[in-house]
Protein backbone atom coordinates (compact mmCIF):
# COMPACT_ATOMS: atom_id res chain seq x y z
CA UNK A 1 0.00 0.00 0.00
CA UNK A 2 1.58 3.26 -1.00
CA UNK A 3 -0.31 5.14 1.62
CA UNK A 4 -2.74 4.46 4.42
CA UNK A 5 -6.30 5.68 4.10
CA UNK A 6 -8.06 6.74 7.26
CA UNK A 7 -11.33 4.99 8.10
CA UNK A 8 -14.59 6.33 9.51
CA UNK A 9 -14.65 6.89 13.26
CA UNK A 10 -10.92 7.60 13.71
CA UNK A 11 -11.50 11.34 14.35
CA UNK A 12 -14.12 13.25 16.31
CA UNK A 13 -16.83 15.18 14.45
CA UNK A 14 -15.01 18.49 15.02
CA UNK A 15 -11.88 17.36 13.18
CA UNK A 16 -13.94 15.71 10.44
CA UNK A 17 -15.50 19.14 9.77
CA UNK A 18 -12.15 20.96 9.98
CA UNK A 19 -10.36 18.71 7.45
CA UNK A 20 -13.42 18.51 5.18
CA UNK A 21 -13.55 22.32 5.09
CA UNK A 22 -9.81 22.50 4.33
CA UNK A 23 -10.19 19.99 1.50
CA UNK A 24 -13.19 21.93 0.15
CA UNK A 25 -11.00 25.04 -0.06
CA UNK A 26 -8.29 23.10 -1.93
CA UNK A 27 -10.83 21.68 -4.41
CA UNK A 28 -12.35 25.14 -4.86
CA UNK A 29 -8.91 26.56 -5.69
CA UNK A 30 -8.37 23.69 -8.18
CA UNK A 31 -11.75 24.41 -9.81
CA UNK A 32 -10.95 28.13 -10.07
CA UNK A 33 -7.56 27.36 -11.62
CA UNK A 34 -9.34 25.17 -14.16
CA UNK A 35 -11.52 28.06 -15.32
CA UNK A 36 -14.24 28.25 -12.67
CA UNK A 37 -15.09 24.57 -13.10
CA UNK A 38 -15.92 24.85 -16.81
CA UNK A 39 -13.72 22.02 -18.06
CA UNK A 40 -13.28 21.30 -21.75
CA UNK A 41 -14.62 17.90 -22.78
CA UNK A 42 -11.17 16.39 -23.57
CA UNK A 43 -9.94 17.39 -20.09
CA UNK A 44 -13.03 15.78 -18.50
CA UNK A 45 -12.45 12.57 -20.45
CA UNK A 46 -8.74 12.49 -19.58
CA UNK A 47 -9.43 13.06 -15.87
CA UNK A 48 -12.03 10.29 -15.87
CA UNK A 49 -9.68 7.91 -17.63
CA UNK A 50 -6.94 8.70 -15.13
CA UNK A 51 -9.28 7.81 -12.28
CA UNK A 52 -10.28 4.57 -14.02
CA UNK A 53 -6.68 3.50 -14.70
CA UNK A 54 -5.62 4.45 -11.17
CA UNK A 55 -8.39 2.24 -9.87
CA UNK A 56 -7.59 -0.65 -12.20
CA UNK A 57 -3.88 -0.46 -11.34
CA UNK A 58 -4.70 -0.46 -7.64
CA UNK A 59 -6.44 -3.83 -8.02
CA UNK A 60 -3.24 -5.51 -9.21
CA UNK A 61 -0.98 -6.95 -6.56
CA UNK A 62 2.68 -6.78 -7.56
CA UNK A 63 4.27 -10.01 -6.30
CA UNK A 64 7.25 -8.39 -4.59
CA UNK A 65 7.82 -7.88 -0.84
CA UNK A 66 4.83 -10.17 -0.16
CA UNK A 67 2.46 -8.19 -2.39
CA UNK A 68 2.23 -4.45 -2.93
CA UNK A 69 -0.62 -2.25 -4.18
CA UNK A 70 0.08 1.20 -5.58
CA UNK A 71 -2.04 4.33 -5.87
CA UNK A 72 -0.08 6.23 -8.54
CA UNK A 73 -1.19 9.66 -7.30
CA UNK A 74 2.17 11.39 -8.06
CA UNK A 75 2.00 9.90 -11.56
CA UNK A 76 -1.46 11.42 -12.00
CA UNK A 77 0.00 14.78 -11.01
CA UNK A 78 2.74 14.37 -13.65
CA UNK A 79 0.23 13.40 -16.34
CA UNK A 80 -2.67 15.80 -15.77
CA UNK A 81 -1.23 18.55 -13.56
CA UNK A 82 -2.00 19.57 -9.98
CA UNK A 83 -5.48 21.07 -10.48
CA UNK A 84 -7.04 18.31 -12.53
CA UNK A 85 -5.08 15.81 -10.43
CA UNK A 86 -6.77 17.15 -7.30
CA UNK A 87 -10.19 16.49 -8.83
CA UNK A 88 -9.00 13.00 -9.82
CA UNK A 89 -7.93 12.13 -6.27
CA UNK A 90 -11.20 13.47 -4.86
CA UNK A 91 -13.10 11.19 -7.25
CA UNK A 92 -10.85 8.25 -6.39
CA UNK A 93 -11.50 8.87 -2.69
CA UNK A 94 -15.26 8.85 -3.30
CA UNK A 95 -14.92 5.51 -5.11
CA UNK A 96 -12.62 4.25 -2.38
CA UNK A 97 -15.07 5.22 0.37
CA UNK A 98 -17.76 3.25 -1.47
CA UNK A 99 -15.75 0.04 -1.10
CA UNK A 100 -14.29 0.68 2.35
CA UNK A 101 -10.85 1.82 1.25
CA UNK A 102 -11.03 4.95 3.40
CA UNK A 103 -14.04 6.37 5.19
CA UNK A 104 -16.85 8.58 3.89
CA UNK A 105 -16.20 11.12 6.62
CA UNK A 106 -12.48 10.95 5.78
CA UNK A 107 -12.85 11.86 2.09
CA UNK A 108 -11.71 15.38 3.00
CA UNK A 109 -8.62 14.39 4.94
CA UNK A 110 -7.66 11.63 2.48
CA UNK A 111 -8.07 14.09 -0.41
CA UNK A 112 -5.82 16.60 1.36
CA UNK A 113 -3.09 13.97 1.78
CA UNK A 114 -3.44 12.78 -1.84
CA UNK A 115 -3.42 16.36 -3.14
CA UNK A 116 -0.02 16.86 -1.51
CA UNK A 117 1.18 13.82 -3.50
CA UNK A 118 -0.31 15.10 -6.76
CA UNK A 119 1.05 18.64 -6.41
CA UNK A 120 4.52 17.57 -5.29
CA UNK A 121 4.66 14.78 -7.89
CA UNK A 122 3.96 17.33 -10.63
CA UNK A 123 6.27 20.06 -9.29
CA UNK A 124 9.27 17.81 -8.60
CA UNK A 125 9.01 16.03 -11.95
CA UNK A 126 8.83 19.31 -13.88
CA UNK A 127 11.70 20.82 -11.84
CA UNK A 128 13.88 17.73 -12.33
CA UNK A 129 13.29 17.58 -16.07
CA UNK A 130 13.38 21.28 -16.92
CA UNK A 131 15.97 22.68 -14.50
CA UNK A 132 18.09 19.71 -13.37
CA UNK A 133 17.84 18.00 -16.79
CA UNK A 134 17.64 14.54 -15.18
CA UNK A 135 16.59 11.43 -17.05
CA UNK A 136 12.91 10.45 -16.97
CA UNK A 137 13.45 7.50 -14.63
CA UNK A 138 15.32 9.64 -12.08
CA UNK A 139 12.74 12.43 -12.31
CA UNK A 140 9.86 9.96 -11.92
CA UNK A 141 11.53 8.17 -9.02
CA UNK A 142 12.39 11.42 -7.22
CA UNK A 143 8.94 12.96 -7.71
CA UNK A 144 6.98 9.93 -6.47
CA UNK A 145 9.24 8.98 -3.57
CA UNK A 146 9.63 12.56 -2.27
CA UNK A 147 5.91 13.29 -2.73
CA UNK A 148 4.92 10.11 -0.87
CA UNK A 149 7.45 10.70 1.91
CA UNK A 150 6.18 14.25 2.47
CA UNK A 151 2.56 13.07 2.35
CA UNK A 152 3.40 10.41 4.96
CA UNK A 153 4.55 13.17 7.31
CA UNK A 154 1.45 15.23 6.48
CA UNK A 155 -0.72 12.22 7.34
CA UNK A 156 1.15 11.76 10.63
CA UNK A 157 0.77 15.46 11.45
CA UNK A 158 -2.96 15.39 10.70
CA UNK A 159 -3.48 12.33 12.92
CA UNK A 160 -1.38 13.86 15.72
CA UNK A 161 -3.26 17.18 15.58
CA UNK A 162 -6.68 15.53 15.44
CA UNK A 163 -5.86 12.75 17.93
CA UNK A 164 -7.41 9.31 17.66
CA UNK A 165 -10.94 9.18 18.98
CA UNK A 166 -11.13 7.20 22.24
CA UNK A 167 -7.41 7.45 23.00
CA UNK A 168 -6.27 9.10 26.20
CA UNK A 169 -2.79 9.86 24.85
CA UNK A 170 -1.59 13.42 24.35
CA UNK A 171 -0.80 14.86 20.92
CA UNK A 172 2.93 14.37 21.52
CA UNK A 173 2.39 10.71 22.51
CA UNK A 174 0.13 10.17 19.50
CA UNK A 175 2.85 11.63 17.26
CA UNK A 176 5.36 9.16 18.72
CA UNK A 177 2.95 6.30 18.00
CA UNK A 178 2.69 7.24 14.35
CA UNK A 179 6.21 6.21 13.34
CA UNK A 180 5.00 2.79 12.15
CA UNK A 181 2.56 4.53 9.82
CA UNK A 182 5.23 6.92 8.58
CA UNK A 183 7.84 4.19 8.11
CA UNK A 184 5.44 1.92 6.21
CA UNK A 185 4.44 4.79 3.95
CA UNK A 186 8.03 5.83 3.26
CA UNK A 187 9.18 2.30 2.38
CA UNK A 188 6.28 1.67 0.00
CA UNK A 189 6.72 5.22 -1.29
CA UNK A 190 10.26 4.37 -2.37
CA UNK A 191 8.95 1.28 -4.14
CA UNK A 192 6.24 3.34 -5.85
CA UNK A 193 9.01 5.75 -6.86
CA UNK A 194 10.75 2.94 -8.75
CA UNK A 195 7.49 1.92 -10.46
CA UNK A 196 6.72 5.54 -11.37
CA UNK A 197 10.23 5.90 -12.78
CA UNK A 198 9.71 2.87 -15.02
CA UNK A 199 6.24 4.07 -16.09
CA UNK A 200 7.41 7.56 -17.10
CA UNK A 201 10.38 5.98 -18.93
CA UNK A 202 7.92 3.77 -20.83
CA UNK A 203 5.59 6.70 -21.55
CA UNK A 204 8.57 8.79 -22.66
CA UNK A 205 9.44 6.15 -25.26
CA UNK A 206 5.94 5.64 -26.67
CA UNK A 207 3.97 8.86 -25.99
CA UNK A 208 6.25 11.64 -24.68
CA UNK A 209 3.48 14.17 -25.39
CA UNK A 210 1.54 12.71 -22.43
CA UNK A 211 4.38 13.92 -20.21
CA UNK A 212 4.31 17.34 -21.86
CA UNK A 213 7.57 16.59 -23.68
CA UNK A 214 8.72 16.32 -27.25
CA UNK A 215 9.94 13.07 -28.76
CA UNK A 216 13.70 12.65 -28.69
CA UNK A 217 15.40 11.91 -32.01
CA UNK A 218 18.37 9.63 -31.49
CA UNK A 219 20.83 8.57 -34.16
CA UNK A 220 22.35 5.23 -33.20
CA UNK A 221 25.70 4.09 -34.55
CA UNK A 222 25.24 2.23 -37.79
CA UNK A 223 21.81 3.71 -38.37
CA UNK A 224 21.27 5.67 -41.56
CA UNK A 225 21.39 9.37 -41.00
CA UNK A 226 18.46 11.49 -42.11
CA UNK A 227 18.71 12.33 -45.76
CA UNK A 228 20.26 15.68 -46.46
CA UNK A 229 19.30 17.31 -49.70
CA UNK A 230 21.91 19.80 -50.67
CA UNK A 231 23.41 20.98 -53.84
CA UNK A 232 26.70 21.94 -52.40
Amino acid sequence: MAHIHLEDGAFTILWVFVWTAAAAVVILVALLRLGRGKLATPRLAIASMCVAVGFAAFQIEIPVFGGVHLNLTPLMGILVGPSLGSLCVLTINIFSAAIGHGGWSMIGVNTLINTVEVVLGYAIYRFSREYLRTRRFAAGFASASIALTVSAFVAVAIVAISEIQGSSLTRAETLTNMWVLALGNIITGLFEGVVTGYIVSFLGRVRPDLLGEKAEVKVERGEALPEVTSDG
Partner: protein
Amino acid sequence: MARKSYSKHIPDFRLVTHYAENRTSIVHRMNPKTKAALLVLVVLFVIILQQPYLLAALLIATILFYLAARLPLGLLIGWYSLPVFFVVTLSILFLFSEPGRQIASTRLLGTNIGITDNGALLVIDLLMRALAAVTFSLTFFMTTKYTYVAVIASKVLPNPIDIIFLLSYRFTFETSDEVADVLDAMHSRSGGLIKGASRQTRMFANIVGLAFVHAFERAERIAKAMEARGFSGRFPMTERLPKARWADYAIIVTVSAALAVVTYSRYFSHLTGL
Protein backbone atom coordinates in the same frame (compact mmCIF):
# COMPACT_ATOMS: atom_id res chain seq x y z
CA MET B 1 -15.70 -13.97 -21.51
CA ALA B 2 -15.81 -14.61 -17.77
CA ARG B 3 -13.94 -11.96 -15.83
CA LYS B 4 -12.17 -12.45 -12.56
CA SER B 5 -10.94 -10.03 -9.99
CA TYR B 6 -7.19 -9.85 -9.49
CA SER B 7 -7.52 -9.28 -5.77
CA LYS B 8 -9.58 -11.19 -3.18
CA HIS B 9 -9.44 -8.39 -0.65
CA ILE B 10 -10.40 -5.43 -2.84
CA PRO B 11 -14.08 -5.20 -3.75
CA ASP B 12 -14.57 -5.79 -7.45
CA PHE B 13 -16.84 -3.12 -8.97
CA ARG B 14 -18.14 -5.60 -11.56
CA LEU B 15 -19.31 -7.94 -8.79
CA VAL B 16 -20.74 -5.04 -6.77
CA THR B 17 -22.70 -3.88 -9.84
CA HIS B 18 -23.77 -7.45 -10.66
CA TYR B 19 -25.37 -7.86 -7.22
CA ALA B 20 -27.07 -4.47 -7.53
CA GLU B 21 -28.50 -5.11 -11.00
CA ASN B 22 -29.41 -8.81 -10.84
CA ARG B 23 -30.40 -9.70 -7.27
CA THR B 24 -33.71 -9.03 -5.52
CA SER B 25 -34.41 -8.61 -1.83
CA ILE B 26 -36.24 -6.33 0.55
CA VAL B 27 -33.13 -4.10 0.68
CA HIS B 28 -32.88 -4.01 -3.14
CA ARG B 29 -36.50 -2.82 -3.28
CA MET B 30 -35.91 -0.12 -0.67
CA ASN B 31 -35.99 3.48 -1.92
CA PRO B 32 -32.42 4.54 -2.99
CA LYS B 33 -32.89 7.93 -1.30
CA THR B 34 -33.71 6.18 1.98
CA LYS B 35 -30.62 3.97 1.71
CA ALA B 36 -28.43 7.00 0.89
CA ALA B 37 -29.84 8.89 3.89
CA LEU B 38 -29.26 5.84 6.09
CA LEU B 39 -25.65 5.67 4.89
CA VAL B 40 -25.10 9.26 6.04
CA LEU B 41 -26.76 8.50 9.38
CA VAL B 42 -24.70 5.32 9.91
CA VAL B 43 -21.47 7.27 9.27
CA LEU B 44 -22.59 9.89 11.82
CA PHE B 45 -23.39 7.12 14.33
CA VAL B 46 -19.93 5.64 13.71
CA ILE B 47 -18.32 9.00 14.58
CA ILE B 48 -20.53 9.99 17.51
CA LEU B 49 -21.23 6.72 19.37
CA GLN B 50 -18.87 6.16 22.30
CA GLN B 51 -19.92 3.08 24.24
CA PRO B 52 -18.39 -0.17 22.91
CA TYR B 53 -21.64 -2.12 23.36
CA LEU B 54 -23.52 0.43 21.23
CA LEU B 55 -20.82 0.24 18.55
CA ALA B 56 -21.09 -3.56 18.63
CA ALA B 57 -24.87 -3.24 18.25
CA LEU B 58 -24.39 -0.90 15.28
CA LEU B 59 -21.95 -3.32 13.60
CA ILE B 60 -24.34 -6.24 14.13
CA ALA B 61 -27.23 -4.15 12.75
CA THR B 62 -25.28 -3.31 9.58
CA ILE B 63 -24.31 -6.98 9.08
CA LEU B 64 -27.98 -8.02 9.51
CA PHE B 65 -28.92 -5.36 6.94
CA TYR B 66 -26.29 -6.84 4.57
CA LEU B 67 -27.67 -10.36 5.13
CA ALA B 68 -31.24 -9.12 4.59
CA ALA B 69 -30.05 -8.09 1.12
CA ARG B 70 -29.17 -11.78 0.52
CA LEU B 71 -25.55 -10.94 -0.15
CA PRO B 72 -22.73 -13.48 0.53
CA LEU B 73 -21.14 -13.11 3.96
CA GLY B 74 -17.87 -14.75 2.84
CA LEU B 75 -17.34 -12.02 0.27
CA LEU B 76 -17.86 -9.33 2.91
CA ILE B 77 -15.36 -10.94 5.28
CA GLY B 78 -12.76 -11.10 2.49
CA TRP B 79 -13.38 -7.44 1.70
CA TYR B 80 -12.88 -6.52 5.36
CA SER B 81 -9.12 -7.13 4.87
CA LEU B 82 -8.23 -3.61 3.74
CA PRO B 83 -10.20 -1.66 6.37
CA VAL B 84 -8.80 -3.97 9.07
CA PHE B 85 -5.28 -3.44 7.69
CA PHE B 86 -5.72 0.35 7.71
CA VAL B 87 -7.11 0.44 11.26
CA VAL B 88 -4.45 -1.90 12.65
CA THR B 89 -1.62 0.04 10.95
CA LEU B 90 -2.95 3.28 12.40
CA SER B 91 -3.50 1.97 15.92
CA ILE B 92 -0.98 -0.86 16.44
CA LEU B 93 1.29 1.07 18.82
CA PHE B 94 -1.69 2.25 20.89
CA LEU B 95 -2.09 -1.41 21.93
CA PHE B 96 1.08 -1.02 23.99
CA SER B 97 1.16 2.67 24.85
CA GLU B 98 -2.43 3.34 25.93
CA PRO B 99 -2.49 3.61 29.76
CA GLY B 100 -4.20 0.64 31.43
CA ARG B 101 -3.79 -2.79 32.97
CA GLN B 102 -1.45 -5.15 31.14
CA ILE B 103 -3.30 -8.20 29.79
CA ALA B 104 -0.34 -9.81 27.98
CA SER B 105 3.35 -9.09 27.96
CA THR B 106 6.65 -10.38 26.63
CA ARG B 107 10.31 -9.46 26.80
CA LEU B 108 11.88 -8.18 23.61
CA LEU B 109 15.57 -7.16 23.55
CA GLY B 110 15.54 -6.90 27.32
CA THR B 111 12.49 -4.62 27.39
CA ASN B 112 9.10 -5.58 28.77
CA ILE B 113 6.40 -4.98 26.15
CA GLY B 114 2.79 -5.39 27.17
CA ILE B 115 -0.65 -5.04 25.65
CA THR B 116 -2.94 -2.97 27.84
CA ASP B 117 -6.68 -3.48 28.26
CA ASN B 118 -7.41 0.08 27.13
CA GLY B 119 -5.11 -0.34 24.13
CA ALA B 120 -6.93 -3.51 23.05
CA LEU B 121 -10.30 -1.81 23.62
CA LEU B 122 -9.23 1.15 21.48
CA VAL B 123 -8.24 -1.08 18.54
CA ILE B 124 -11.50 -3.06 18.82
CA ASP B 125 -13.44 0.20 19.10
CA LEU B 126 -11.84 1.60 15.90
CA LEU B 127 -12.37 -1.71 14.08
CA MET B 128 -16.07 -1.78 14.96
CA ARG B 129 -16.50 1.82 13.80
CA ALA B 130 -14.73 1.21 10.48
CA LEU B 131 -16.41 -2.12 9.73
CA ALA B 132 -19.92 -0.82 10.48
CA ALA B 133 -19.46 2.00 7.93
CA VAL B 134 -17.85 -0.34 5.37
CA THR B 135 -20.62 -2.93 5.70
CA PHE B 136 -23.39 -0.38 5.19
CA SER B 137 -21.57 1.31 2.32
CA LEU B 138 -21.06 -1.99 0.48
CA THR B 139 -24.69 -2.95 1.11
CA PHE B 140 -25.80 0.37 -0.41
CA PHE B 141 -23.75 -0.10 -3.57
CA MET B 142 -24.54 -3.83 -3.87
CA THR B 143 -28.30 -3.18 -3.73
CA THR B 144 -28.70 0.09 -5.65
CA LYS B 145 -28.85 0.11 -9.44
CA TYR B 146 -26.29 2.18 -11.36
CA THR B 147 -28.93 4.53 -12.77
CA TYR B 148 -30.03 5.49 -9.25
CA VAL B 149 -26.42 5.90 -8.07
CA ALA B 150 -25.85 8.15 -11.10
CA VAL B 151 -28.90 10.31 -10.29
CA ILE B 152 -27.83 10.65 -6.62
CA ALA B 153 -24.23 11.51 -7.65
CA SER B 154 -25.41 14.15 -10.11
CA LYS B 155 -27.56 15.74 -7.39
CA VAL B 156 -24.98 15.59 -4.57
CA LEU B 157 -21.66 16.32 -6.32
CA PRO B 158 -20.86 19.72 -7.84
CA ASN B 159 -20.12 20.09 -11.55
CA PRO B 160 -17.67 18.95 -13.04
CA ILE B 161 -16.82 16.46 -10.27
CA ASP B 162 -20.12 14.64 -10.88
CA ILE B 163 -19.25 14.25 -14.59
CA ILE B 164 -15.76 12.92 -13.77
CA PHE B 165 -17.33 10.51 -11.26
CA LEU B 166 -19.94 9.22 -13.71
CA LEU B 167 -17.53 8.91 -16.63
CA SER B 168 -14.84 7.18 -14.59
CA TYR B 169 -17.45 4.77 -13.15
CA ARG B 170 -18.17 3.63 -16.73
CA PHE B 171 -14.51 3.59 -17.77
CA THR B 172 -13.48 1.56 -14.70
CA PHE B 173 -15.00 -1.61 -16.14
CA GLU B 174 -13.31 -1.30 -19.53
CA THR B 175 -9.96 -0.34 -18.05
CA SER B 176 -10.05 -3.15 -15.50
CA ASP B 177 -10.90 -5.63 -18.26
CA GLU B 178 -8.04 -4.35 -20.40
CA VAL B 179 -5.52 -4.65 -17.58
CA ALA B 180 -6.89 -8.11 -16.75
CA ASP B 181 -6.48 -9.16 -20.40
CA VAL B 182 -2.82 -8.09 -20.38
CA LEU B 183 -2.25 -9.96 -17.11
CA ASP B 184 -3.98 -13.06 -18.50
CA ALA B 185 -1.80 -12.88 -21.60
CA MET B 186 1.28 -12.55 -19.41
CA HIS B 187 0.28 -15.51 -17.22
CA SER B 188 -0.52 -17.68 -20.24
CA ARG B 189 3.04 -17.10 -21.43
CA SER B 190 4.38 -18.00 -17.96
CA GLY B 191 5.13 -14.35 -17.32
CA GLY B 192 3.89 -14.70 -13.75
CA LEU B 193 6.68 -17.16 -13.03
CA ILE B 194 9.44 -14.68 -13.77
CA LYS B 195 11.44 -14.13 -10.63
CA GLY B 196 13.19 -11.04 -9.44
CA ALA B 197 11.74 -7.88 -7.94
CA SER B 198 13.28 -5.64 -10.59
CA ARG B 199 11.87 -7.68 -13.50
CA GLN B 200 8.41 -7.93 -11.89
CA THR B 201 8.36 -4.21 -11.15
CA ARG B 202 9.40 -3.25 -14.67
CA MET B 203 6.79 -5.59 -16.14
CA PHE B 204 4.07 -4.12 -13.94
CA ALA B 205 5.18 -0.60 -14.87
CA ASN B 206 4.93 -1.42 -18.58
CA ILE B 207 1.41 -2.83 -18.09
CA VAL B 208 0.27 0.30 -16.25
CA GLY B 209 2.08 2.54 -18.72
CA LEU B 210 0.31 0.78 -21.59
CA ALA B 211 -3.03 1.15 -19.76
CA PHE B 212 -2.39 4.90 -19.44
CA VAL B 213 -1.48 5.22 -23.14
CA HIS B 214 -4.66 3.36 -24.18
CA ALA B 215 -6.70 5.36 -21.65
CA PHE B 216 -5.51 8.70 -23.04
CA GLU B 217 -6.11 7.58 -26.63
CA ARG B 218 -9.59 6.39 -25.68
CA ALA B 219 -10.24 9.64 -23.81
CA GLU B 220 -9.37 11.63 -26.95
CA ARG B 221 -11.80 9.52 -29.04
CA ILE B 222 -14.56 9.69 -26.41
CA ALA B 223 -14.19 13.46 -26.06
CA LYS B 224 -14.59 13.89 -29.83
CA ALA B 225 -17.65 11.60 -29.82
CA MET B 226 -19.18 13.48 -26.88
CA GLU B 227 -18.65 16.84 -28.57
CA ALA B 228 -20.04 15.49 -31.86
CA ARG B 229 -23.20 14.51 -30.00
CA GLY B 230 -23.54 17.99 -28.52
CA PHE B 231 -22.25 17.38 -24.98
CA SER B 232 -22.71 20.62 -23.09
CA GLY B 233 -21.10 19.82 -19.74
CA ARG B 234 -24.09 17.98 -18.24
CA PHE B 235 -25.34 14.42 -18.59
CA PRO B 236 -29.10 14.32 -19.15
CA MET B 237 -30.65 12.08 -16.47
CA THR B 238 -33.59 10.21 -17.94
CA GLU B 239 -34.18 8.12 -14.82
CA ARG B 240 -35.92 9.58 -11.78
CA LEU B 241 -35.57 8.40 -8.22
CA PRO B 242 -38.73 6.71 -6.89
CA LYS B 243 -40.87 8.87 -4.62
CA ALA B 244 -40.45 8.24 -0.91
CA ARG B 245 -43.39 6.59 0.87
CA TRP B 246 -44.49 7.00 4.46
CA ALA B 247 -42.41 3.94 5.46
CA ASP B 248 -39.26 5.63 4.11
CA TYR B 249 -39.97 8.79 6.09
CA ALA B 250 -40.71 6.70 9.19
CA ILE B 251 -37.35 4.90 8.94
CA ILE B 252 -35.37 8.11 8.45
CA VAL B 253 -37.20 9.99 11.23
CA THR B 254 -36.71 7.10 13.69
CA VAL B 255 -32.99 6.70 12.95
CA SER B 256 -32.47 10.49 13.00
CA ALA B 257 -34.20 10.68 16.39
CA ALA B 258 -31.87 7.97 17.73
CA LEU B 259 -28.89 9.91 16.38
CA ALA B 260 -30.19 13.10 18.01
CA VAL B 261 -30.39 11.29 21.39
CA VAL B 262 -26.84 9.92 21.00
CA THR B 263 -25.51 13.36 19.95
CA TYR B 264 -27.25 15.05 22.87
CA SER B 265 -25.95 12.53 25.39
CA ARG B 266 -22.38 12.95 24.13
CA TYR B 267 -22.11 16.69 23.55
CA PHE B 268 -24.91 18.50 25.41
CA SER B 269 -26.04 16.42 28.42
CA HIS B 270 -23.46 18.07 30.70
CA LEU B 271 -25.03 21.47 29.95
CA THR B 272 -28.40 20.46 31.36
CA GLY B 273 -27.19 17.87 33.85
CA LEU B 274 -29.47 15.17 32.32
